[in-house]
């Protein structure tokens, strides 16, 4: 017992002010981390069911669009496989879009939704945009496939992929402009 207290007495003065500050800072960072983690989990928790499904589909397409975009920005090296995977994702998710926006109260007004009522008021235009998106994504897939068989990749071919990609993702903006509610 005596030994123990003497150890403590010895250790406390050793543990200088800077160490204390370090400990305090570390615990503060941990706390902030935990708070951030909890809130981000909550943000995902807010959406559920069909809304969560479609948000995840959009996110997945966005992730692929980002990967392809990074290539054209010179942030990543040019890779035809990524383009092929992106176009597959666009086609697959594009086909599910009409199913992911059913005209139900939950789908219309559920928590976290950014879907505009215009979707159901103008269903024909909404689905026409989705179809356009699928067509253009198929074209992107075809352009990428054609290049995959050719041996050289020159400026013209990358330009072709670029414009096919641009054409496909034009639908993203077109649809968001008319059918997505602005958050914030």
């Amino acid at each position, binding site marked *: 017992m005596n030994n123990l207290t003497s150890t403590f007495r010895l250790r406390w003065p050793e543990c200088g002010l800077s160490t204390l500050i370090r400990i305090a800072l570390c615990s503060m960072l941990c706390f902030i981390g935990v708070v951030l983690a909890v809130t981000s989990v909550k943000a995902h928790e807010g959406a559920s069911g069909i809304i969560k499904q479609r948000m995840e589909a959009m996110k997945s*397409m966005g992730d692929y669009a*980002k990967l392809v975009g990074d290539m054209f*920005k010179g*942030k990543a090296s040019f890779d035809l496989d990524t383009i092929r995977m992106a176009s597959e994702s666009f086609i697959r998710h594009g086909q599910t879009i009409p199913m992911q926006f059913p005209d139900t109260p939950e789908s219309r007004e559920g928590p976290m939704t950014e879907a505009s009522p215009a979707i159901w008021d103008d269903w024909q235009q909404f689905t026409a945009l989705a179809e356009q998106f699928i067509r253009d994504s198929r074209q992107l897939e075809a352009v990428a496939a054609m290049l995959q068989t050719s041996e050289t990749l020159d400026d013209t071919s990358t330009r072709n992929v670029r414009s096919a990609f641009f054409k496909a993702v034009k639908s*993203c*903006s*077109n649809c*968001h402009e008319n059918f*997505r509610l*602005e958050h914030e």
Partner: protein
Amino acid sequence: MKIGARVAVVGVIFCVILSITAIIQLQSNKRIESLRREAWRDADLLTLVANESRGEWVARAAGCIGCHTDSENDGEMLAGGVGFDTPIGRMISPNITSDRRYGIGTWSREQLADALINGRAPNGSHYWPVLPYTAYRSMKTQDVVDLHAWLMASKPIALPDGEHNLWIPDAARHLVGLWKVLYVPAEPLPNASMPSGQYLVQNLGHCAECHAQRGITSGIANRSLTGNTQGPHGVSVPAITKTALRDWIAEDIAFYLEIGMTPDGDFAGAHMAPVIEHSTSHLEPADRAAIAEYLLSDINQ
């Protein structure tokens, strides 16, 4: 007696306010006239040779096409009809095709310059500042000349202008002269040393109209692009200062202005999508690079 005195006092105050307003108004008009002459002095508006095809570039960069084309209802290019919700009511953009009756087909170069730079209609009345002449103030004379040539060569569309739906009488337009004293920048001359990115953002592109905070009279006292919580149609518009764009590199901005994709793969909607569609996506890659350079520079705080 007491009531009579009160009425007299109120009457006198009213008259004083009215005369002060009139004086400021007159001064403002004088100032605008003299500034206009100054603006034409260095490069004569009437003798410059117009480059019509370059005029389309000016129209794109200045956003003429986006605001004066009712794309939503498949309207003809430049024929107007786009609604703008303002604090004083709904305004409808006019027909600016070359139609001589319903458009601006009869306008001279000087009249176009007067509209864009001074905010004055050919009949001498003030335009509501929904036309961003506060930003066009420093427009280069050559740009006005080229734009004029391109507009005059545009397809004429015989479509009458839509009626504004305002809750204040049209006579209140006279007060715009007063407003101009506060918000039209004093120096009308384009600065030759101004970097092209700054000219595109702050003048032709008039980004501050949405990306800066407006005061109580809807004027923008400070054109820093710090965002606007009360943007068009009540939607919040983000800040695009250097600090706000810290996660963006120049290529991200140029790419966004070309196809509307943010660095994380999201796509612009709302009111930025038409800006990209009608304006920034049609500019040259060098223009978008210049805009990016300006936005990420230290001046853009």
